[in-house]
């Protein structure tokens, strides 16, 4: 009976693999890539399902590239990329340009006084601040009637899902359009990175500060993640938050953002991917026409400090008014590591669904957590980063119990081979998950763009499955033994501390 079941499964697998290879091969044929003379890469994937297309602009610069004392700048520039150009968003660009230059002079003067270590004159500081605000008001007169014109054009022309993100590793921009707007899109997207204008910068900076308050300052898990990540990395820029430290957000200037753009938004750092009802033969010349205009510039110095090996466990414990949480991370190599797929396999085994080991042990059997998982990519994966585990204790259980249970599962990984069924399941799921991701213009555009940027070859998206296929049981034990060791660990905990005040409630979970 058991033998029959195994046999059946094998048959199913052969079938699935065959179908999979055919489908992937047919997909690869739909894809055309071209590196333009300026170094920018264009990828087109023909998916004639409906007369629409999605695009993804990948810029190979993230908050790791933020200059010293200017954390948050990569993300700030991403916000500025929605502020229009010299032709979009202004009444008179020549006049506005002069007015914006005056804002920068006034801001520099204000900042110099504000940051004087000694002999700061409060009266003078007030005057300088007022002068800066007056200069902003002057510059705004040029742009105010055209607020958000860039976004208004995209939306009124039928743009869908206009958005962007910045993380430690990169910045991405995306939306979808009806297919008859392909050339309009090529114009808008190239102009956006040809002639960005740092208008309304200091108001947008306030918007970003509100974003920081929402994501980090006013959210206990946000607070923990920030403290945890900065404790995990001593030397590499991964220790800095993408959103930026509050001091830096209140300090950097529009000039800084322009400099960041000039340095990192260079053609060879960009991959533009279009997926949808387009023909490469027709779309490529249009895209090339507009994006060839982006200048090639010299590649910036990309040196970062490599994180030295961690020599002892680090712990961050936050005493909060909120419920407890347990998090731990182990340093692992970057995505180029030959073992990258082994980590993916471990993630799947430990975390994917109700068959995952962490779910079965912590949620189903011990019934001490409501959710638990382990995953790579904290806070990014372009550089050596963390493989992290977390668990949310259910009422009556403590973070320490989470640690013990997670460590129990890690020990199992180190000591016992995973089963044949588990290994097969991991490999089948990797294929199915890739297949499912092919059914969406947006998803394909961002995946193709990301893999092109990371490997200089979009085909790696499809090869990622082959890499997982080669993972062995011994690989998983080897990596677990190598990486999941106490000295390589940083722990982050939220402990419930009760509300402040004269009569604090008795602490739950206490002795």
């Amino acid at each position, binding site marked *: 009976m058991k033998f029959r079941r195994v046999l059946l499964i094998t048959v199913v697998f052969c079938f699935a693999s065959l179908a999979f290879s055919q489908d992937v091969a047919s997909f690869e044929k739909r894809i055309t890539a071209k590196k333009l003379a300026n170094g920018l890469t264009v990828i087109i994937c023909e998916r004639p399902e409906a007369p629409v297309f999605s695009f993804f602009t990948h810029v190979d610069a993230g908050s790791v590239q933020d200059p010293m004392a200017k954390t948050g700048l990569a993300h700030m520039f991403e916000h500025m990329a929605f502020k229009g150009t010299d032709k979009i968003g202004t009444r008179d660009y020549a006049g506005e340009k002069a007015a914006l230059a005056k804002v920068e002079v006034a801001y520099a003067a204000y900042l110099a006084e504000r940051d004087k270590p000694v002999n700061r004159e409060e009266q003078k500081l007030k005057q300088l601040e007022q002068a800066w605000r007056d200069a902003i008001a002057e510059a705004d007169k040029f742009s105010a009637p055209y607020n958000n014109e860039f976004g208004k054009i995209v939306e009124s022309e039928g743009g869908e899902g206009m958005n962007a993100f910045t993380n430690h590793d990169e910045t991405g921009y995306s939306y979808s359009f009806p297919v008859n707007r392909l050339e309009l899109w090529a114009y808008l997207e190239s102009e956006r990175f040809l002639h960005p204008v740092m208008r309304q910068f200091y108001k947008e900076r306030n918007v970003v500060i509100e974003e920081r308050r929402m994501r980090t300052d006013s959210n206990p898990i946000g607070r923990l993640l920030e403290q945890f990540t900065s404790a995990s990395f001593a030397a590499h820029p991964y220790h800095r938050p993408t959103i930026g430290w509050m001091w830096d957000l209140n300090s950097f200037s529009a000039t800084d953002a322009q400099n960041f753009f000039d340095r990192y938004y260079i053609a060879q750092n960009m991959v533009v991917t279009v997926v949808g009802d387009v023909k490469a033969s027709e779309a490529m010349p249009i895209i090339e026409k507009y994006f060839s205009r982006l200048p090639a510039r010299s590649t910036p110095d990309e040196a970062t400090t490599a994180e030295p090996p961690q020599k002892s466990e680090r712990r961050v414990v936050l005493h909060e008014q909120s419920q407890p949480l347990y998090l731990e991370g182990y340093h692992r190599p970057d995505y180029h590591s030959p073992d990258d797929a082994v980590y993916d396999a471990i993630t799947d085994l430990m975390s994917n669904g109700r068959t995952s080991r962490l779910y079965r042990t912590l949620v189903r059997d011990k019934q001490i957590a*409501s959710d638990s998982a382990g995953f790579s990519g904290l806070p990014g994966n372009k550089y050596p980063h963390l493989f992290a585990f977390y668990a949310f204790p259910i009422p009556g259980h403590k973070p320490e119990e989470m640690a013990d249970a997670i460590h129990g599962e890690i020990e199992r990984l180190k000591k016992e081979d995973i089963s044949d069924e588990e290994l097969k399941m991991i490999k089948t799921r990797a294929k199915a998950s890739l297949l499912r991701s092919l059914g969406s213009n947006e998803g394909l555009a961002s995946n193709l763009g990301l893999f092109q940027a990371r490997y200089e070859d979009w085909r790696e998206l499809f090869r990622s499955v082959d890499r997982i296929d080669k993972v062995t049981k011994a690989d998983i034990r080897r990596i677990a033994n190598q990486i999941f060791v106490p000295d390589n660990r940083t722990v982050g905990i939220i402990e419930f501390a009760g509300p402040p005040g004269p009569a604090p409630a008795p602490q739950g*979970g206490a002795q």
Partner: protein
Amino acid sequence: MKRALIALFALILIGSNAQLWAQAASWKDVLIPPLPAFHPAQPKRIALPNGMVIFLQEDHELPLIDGFARIRGGGRSVPASKNGLMDIYGEVWRTGGTKNQTGDQLDDYLEQRAAHVETGGGIDSTTINWSCLKGDLDDVFKVFQDLLQNPEFRADKIQIAQKGMYDGISRRNDDPGGIAAREAAKLAYGAKNPYARVPEYATVAAVTRQDLVDWHHNYVHPNNIILGVVGDFDSAAMEARIRQAFGAWPKSQAAKDPEIKFTPAKPGNYLVEKTDVNQSNIYMVGLGTTRKDPDYFAISVFNEAFGGGFSSRLFGDIRTTKGLAYSVGGGIGTGWDRPGMLRLVMSTKSETTGEAIQALDEEISDLSKKPITDEEIKRAKDAILNSFIFRFDSPGKVLQEKMAYEFYGYQLDFLEKYQKEIEKVTKEDVARVAAKYMHRDQMPVLVVGNPGEFDKAFSSLGPVNKLDTTIPAPPPGIVGDQGSPQQRCFQD
């Protein structure tokens, strides 16, 4: 030197391009050809004699097949004393397994095939969906059918589901955005309204296995089910499969929609004090309407212009011009078969809480002083109509849309009608719906924040009602032996 050479090279390239291609100098010069005609494939609708309605949508792009069954009856029919039953039912329907296999066995069986069969409990319906590789359809459909007709609701999984819910209850005062959304719904609909009420330890603890069995027995009948399938299959074969599986299933009692009372809170100021934040979450709320309302089309245009996206007034004034918020938006909510929530929502630093409320006040009063202009209306209508195609740009979306119309009793061509009706909306229509719904003096205002840091006392805007968000204590013995989570929650 090298840079100069590269620049020169680029210049030459552009020069040669320019001869071949005329480049647009302004976005307005870019040619926009007409959009090719597009008539997406429509799903085949089949009504079985026992009342089950089936939609079949072929999509041969990838070797995948997904099915979605939606069953009438949901959380709004659950008595208040057992609030949470629907969440537990939605989880344990699947995790509790069938008479033939435990949930754990199903997990192994399905995951080996990278397939999913999942169940859920919603406010007006329950769902059971599958997703599989084409080659696994026989295996997975069997599980789907077995779960649909023979669920077992094993007790050990009920316990896990309850513990998960206790955890959610214990954490519900941790995130200020979550508190604000929850309390705003209570203010807009009434605290006891099924669309606003939240489960408590006691109501979750009151749910028994028999409740789940009874629910299934009372609601899961073919005449309450709409089943949609999309993917790489032949419709005739799929129809035969479904008829074979469900054709002989006898019909039974039809689900009835409960009477629901919507009792918005009195206008005024409401505060949830939270001392570990530096930002206030602000809501102004009221009652919206339904999509069956003839005003729906004018409301769609109004919402786009007032609080929709980058182009909207709220975004332009409060975020771009005033720099007061990252997150701001709002509009008149429209539900399928019950009123949506009217809301203006933003978050701003504690020190500009008063200023932000004033800014929202102005936005509402401006609707009569500076009514939405022709230009704003044109932009809003263009945005809706030009992006219209994204409502049906995949076979799966077309299927979901039709299933929703079937479920809520709308004409199946509602979408086509929608397009024509949006085109007809005038400035007067938009002004009329704005005047009908946007009354500041009737709106409760909620702030979740840290009053010690506010720019002006909330009470300077009128009397303040402090909301008590203390989590009621669990009945003894249900959340472990290490102290009660009730004591851990934030207390005013």
